[in-house]
């Protein structure tokens, strides 16, 4: 037994020695903020955001005012009119709020360079197309992305996607797992974070963040990524090239 203890101590000492050698080898002369080939793998996903208390109406109103000043307010006719979740998958809690333009403030909502991203999830943006507009009394979904551990409550949390044609019935925040379990056998897009499930124009589906914008996912009809992202569509091999004498020779 004594013998085993000595071995164990020696083994631990060796491990410590090797560890210290490895650590010193990694840190010696290393400038700050440099990543090199073969740097140690690190978890790509940060730990989940700390659980937060349920949003209060006051907090939600404050967040909406932070973004839209007095130009839009929470739509009191909708219920529920806000949902919390990590919709962009950055481990910081976001909030989706149903809002309406304030009477007389439509000009501010349609300003040329708004501090939000106005999108219609059903219409992919294209260069040169006229900007989409917000109509009077239009019901919109504002997704305010969180910042840091305080999430959407942080005063710095202002990145906002303002979505047209996105408010239906039975809105609810759902995790990727919940959506996957509910739609087994159906293909799905790459999901960054939580989804907003709802019924829009009689069809059940989900709003999801694809890394650049919010898109609509209907499990019954989803076929793949949007066409706007297709690379070099329709390319076929150049038959003339394939008949080049050098190619034919090599093939034989």
């Amino acid at each position, binding site marked *: 037994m004594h013998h085993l203890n000595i071995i164990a101590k020696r083994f631990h000492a060796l491990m410590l020695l090797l560890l210290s050698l490895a650590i010193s*080898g990694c840190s010696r002369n290393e400038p700050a*903020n440099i*990543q*090199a*080939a073969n740097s140690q793998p*690190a978890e*790509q996903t940060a730990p989940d955001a700390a659980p937060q208390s349920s949003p209060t109406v006051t907090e939600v109103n404050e967040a909406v005012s932070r973004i839209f000043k007095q130009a839009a307010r929470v739509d009191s006719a909708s219920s529920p009119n806000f949902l919390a979740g990590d919709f962009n998958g950055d481990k910081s809690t976001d909030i989706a709020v149903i809002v309406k333009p304030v009477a007389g403030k439509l000009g501010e909502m349609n300003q040329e360079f*708004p*501090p939000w991203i106005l999108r219609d999830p059903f219409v992919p943006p294209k260069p040169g197309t006229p900007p989409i507009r917000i109509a009077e009394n239009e019901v919109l979904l504002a997704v305010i992305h969180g910042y840091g551990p305080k999430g959407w409550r942080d005063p710095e949390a202002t990145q906002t996607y303002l979505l047209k044609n996105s408010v239906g019935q039975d809105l609810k925040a759902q995790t990727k797992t919940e959506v996957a379990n509910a739609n087994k056998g159906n293909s799905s897009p790459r999901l960054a974070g939580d989804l907003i499930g709802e019924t829009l124009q009689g069809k059940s589906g989900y709003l999801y963040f694809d890394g*650049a914008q919010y898109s609509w996912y209907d499990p019954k009809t989803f076929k793949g990524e949007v066409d706007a992202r297709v690379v070099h569509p329709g390319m076929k091999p150049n038959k003339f090239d394939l008949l080049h004498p050098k190619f034919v020779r090599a093939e034989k």
Partner: protein
Amino acid sequence: MSKLFKVLALTLFAALALSLWLSPATTGQKNKNEVDPEAPPEGAVALAAPTEALTTDMDAKTDDLFNNFGARGTPINECVADAVPPTARGNGRFEDNKFIFEEEETVADGLGPTYNDVGCVTCHQAVDTGAFGQQMEFRAGHLSNGNFVDAPGGQLIHARGTDSDVVEHITTGENVRAFRVVTQALGDGFVECIANQDLQANVNAEPSAQRGTLTAVPITEANNTLRFGRFGWKAQHGSLLSFAGDAYLNEMGITSKFDGFGGRSSSAADAGTHENPATTAEGVIDVTGPPFDPVVDPEDDGGDVIAFADFMAATRAPGRQNPIPAAAVRGDPLFNQVGCAVCHTRTLTTAPAGTVINGGAFTVPAALGDKIIHPFSDFALHDVGTGDGIVQNAGQSTANQMRTAPLWGIRARNRFMHDGLSVNVSETIQRHAGQATAARNAFNALTAAQRADLLAFVLSL
């Protein structure tokens, strides 16, 4: 027991030694992340103060691309004579190199078996040879224990193949997917000539919350000596030869001694994992030999790659809009005021002529040395909330970081960010988050008129 201990110790030591030996980045290196300072030769006398780099007006109708690096030559008329590729950097002629950059490759040249396009200029053309393109590169992989893993056969999923049987497809399991728009290469010769320590000093001066991460990447032509990366969306290349050799292999499927694998991929024991393998419906198949890829490796003797590198090195930097609109003049100071300039560094100066860079493989020529440039980039990686999840050669921690996009010449494109999914500058700024949150919020705090002025400034670059 003592014997057991010795065996155990020997095994551990061997494992450690083996892991260090197998680390490719350590070849000839004192430290895996260490890059050499790139200073002028001892005894060199400082010449006149640095001068502004020559610029192009970003107008294809104007013949103003050449920056005086090497000889200019005369435009090539292929009915009269073929272009002559250089045999070493700097000994070719600009017009020959430009012609080679604009050539379309064929299967007989080694194109494919899988590839993205048929020539450099097919992607780098807007508004002039060497500039932007709207084409997208597609990369894919998946997560394993939180780490990014390439799709089988490689993360780059080529859009084309020389045979429909080898066109790549990905499985649903490869759910980390990213599209990256073409970067522009005008003025990259000046970028290549920025010394390592100058990039480091610039990044060190950034506030800690915004500080970028420089990548230490291998220089192919210098036995994989490490240098700070500066080219590509992940700053994955540090020299124009490495960049061009990689692109010839990965975008066109043409092997060369500068491709990162010694131009031997088809004959290598691990053939099928390096040169444009195809992830097909039947899985990963070896497509590197006949009938799919009949040309013997290396498919290029390196001359084309040197021509590509020297063409880029001999291009002028993108110049400002001329005349500069009044709104852009008003927006100029706002760019610094809101914090854009922290990462989008306005001004850098190239190393003095005579400085040996690229791990000893290139000496800064007079045309590129001591030049003041305005790339509006620190060439470092940052997390601004738009990371594509792809890891290249700078480690897992960089999965969601992207190189600060150089803004020079940006007025010549209308699809922004790495994915090209923002179609105006205002929305592009709104997509900035993470390390750029404070700058975005400061932009939003400007008046509407100030925001318009700042956007006009950006579109004057």
